[in-house]
């Protein structure tokens, strides 16, 4: 029994050590955000915390503007994704045909195209459509990137709903609208809301297209942080404060979507 206990503690110790190493950079960034620029270069774990760096970040940049862009882009693209994905998933889950499976696999295959392959055409299309450096342009791109994930996840949730419930409602004479509103929505809502959260996380952290398609006006936080690459990157406390603000809210959302993240990003292959 005691040997078993020692084993448990040993395994726990190693696991916690691994987790601490992985979380280390984030922990370090969080600490540094509350230090003065002078203290930032010290390894000290104990220091007198200050909010000066946060004040500096707000004073020297339109942080709010970038954050607003990030918010508009992630919420906007998520809403658009759901509007497009839900009817499709509804149809495919409840009225499947012989073409349903091939369609789903084909949707998945659109994610197989590396972004860099179409960077230049998309850039030029955006330029001629006047979409460069606009929030609507990035909403569009993120919608396209995340639509297959949205369809797959909504499809997976709809498939879990027993067909009998819907049939019972139909026998009772419920119309399609009534059926969706009072039968489908209550059952599917928890799954769909975590789908939405995952889509928000993905769009919030999107960097490739944001860096290439925006400059100043529509730049989200990913692009704003990139502007710290030089020479402001040497001001660790300010870099950390700006980064912490950009990362913390989405990390909490990410933690909440832990399970859906696996299902969504593996297209239901791992549940």
């Amino acid at each position: 029994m005691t040997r078993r206990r020692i084993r448990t503690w040993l395994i726990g110790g190693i696991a916690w050590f691994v987790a601490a190493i992985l979380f280390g950079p984030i922990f370090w960034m969080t600490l540094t955000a509350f230090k003065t620029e002078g203290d930032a270069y010290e390894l000290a774990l104990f220091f007198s915390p200050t909010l000066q760096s946060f004040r500096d970040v707000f004073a020297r940049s339109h942080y709010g503007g970038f954050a607003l862009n990030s918010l508009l882009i992630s919420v906007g693209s998520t809403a658009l994704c759901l509007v497009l994905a839900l009817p499709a998933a509804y149809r495919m889950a409840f009225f499947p045909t012989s073409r349903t499976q091939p369609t789903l696999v084909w949707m998945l295959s659109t994610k197989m195209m590396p972004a860099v392959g179409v960077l230049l055409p998309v850039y030029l299309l955006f330029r001629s459509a006047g979409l460069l450096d606009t929030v609507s342009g990035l909403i569009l791109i993120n919608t396209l990137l995340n639509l297959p994930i949205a369809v797959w996840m909504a499809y997976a949730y709809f498939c879990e709903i027993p067909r009998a419930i819907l049939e019972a409602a139909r026998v009772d004479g419920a119309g399609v609208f009534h059926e969706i509103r009072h039968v489908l929505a209550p059952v599917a809502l928890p799954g769909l809301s975590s789908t939405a959260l995952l889509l928000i996380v993905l769009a919030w952290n999107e960097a490739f297209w944001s860096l290439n398609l925006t400059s100043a006006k529509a730049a989200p936080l990913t692009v704003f942080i990139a502007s710290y690459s030089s020479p402001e990157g040497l001001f660790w406390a300010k870099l950390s404060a700006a980064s912490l603000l950009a990362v913390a809210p989405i990390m909490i959302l990410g933690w909440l979507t832990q399970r859906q993240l696996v299902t969504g990003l593996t297209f239901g292959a791992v549940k």
Partner: protein
Amino acid sequence: MLLQLPAVGVLLFWMVVPLGLAVYFSLVRYSLLNPDLRGFAGFENYQYLWEDPSFLPAVINTIVLVGSVLAVTVGGGTAMAVLFERRFPGRNVAVLLAIAPFFVMPTVSALVWKNMILHPVYGVAARALSLVGLAPIDWLGGCPMLSLIMIVSWEWLPFAFLVLYTSLKSLDPEQREAARIDGAGGAQVFLHVILPHLRRAIGVVVLVETIFLLSIFAEIYTTTSGGPGHSTTNLAFLVYSLGLLQFDVGIGSAGGILAVILANIVAFFLVRMLATSLKQGA
């Protein structure tokens, strides 16, 4: 049909139009700096790209980066999944901490690592090395590719871990019990029970990561800008610099098409497996 039409139509457009344009651009002379230069070029762009001194290094760098990160994340992720699957105090919190890096936006990861960890004098890595009496290393200057692999692996290890951990939890405990009763040791259980169970999940991780890793860009853009020399230029960064810095759309598109081909070679082997397992699952 009407209900899925918008989603299908939008994705069809997204798949066909940009890719078709990329193929077309890669076959014509198209420079944003010199609009008079036009006309069909055949495979000239590809030939030019092939002769470009940065091309072969970019292909090799792409393969090295994707391959190394895959090895680290799949190997490390499997080990972590097996480790975290045991019960220990505070396991759920430890899992949350371990997966946190995946939610950090790429530009933040790259800059925090570049400045605060890999800084040759003040970075945590340099301090740690000097604690044990080793000389500090100029990470991004001296071994840029290794540094980049470290940063990207840190971002993707949590993803591999989380997928494999989730998959491992669905392993029937009785199966493992049975193997144990038959006298299988820890290593044998791992090789003959755990690994076969994880096969599909590993395939998915390799596929998803490959697609994302082929387009690694923000990390390079914010740390090394492809340098020193061409030592960290991958295909994504090469296409960006050919097309959007040197404004040669034709040659840049040829590079993009090559990245698509590379992705399809990987996808060809994995999608089939994935598609059949998806059908079983659905």
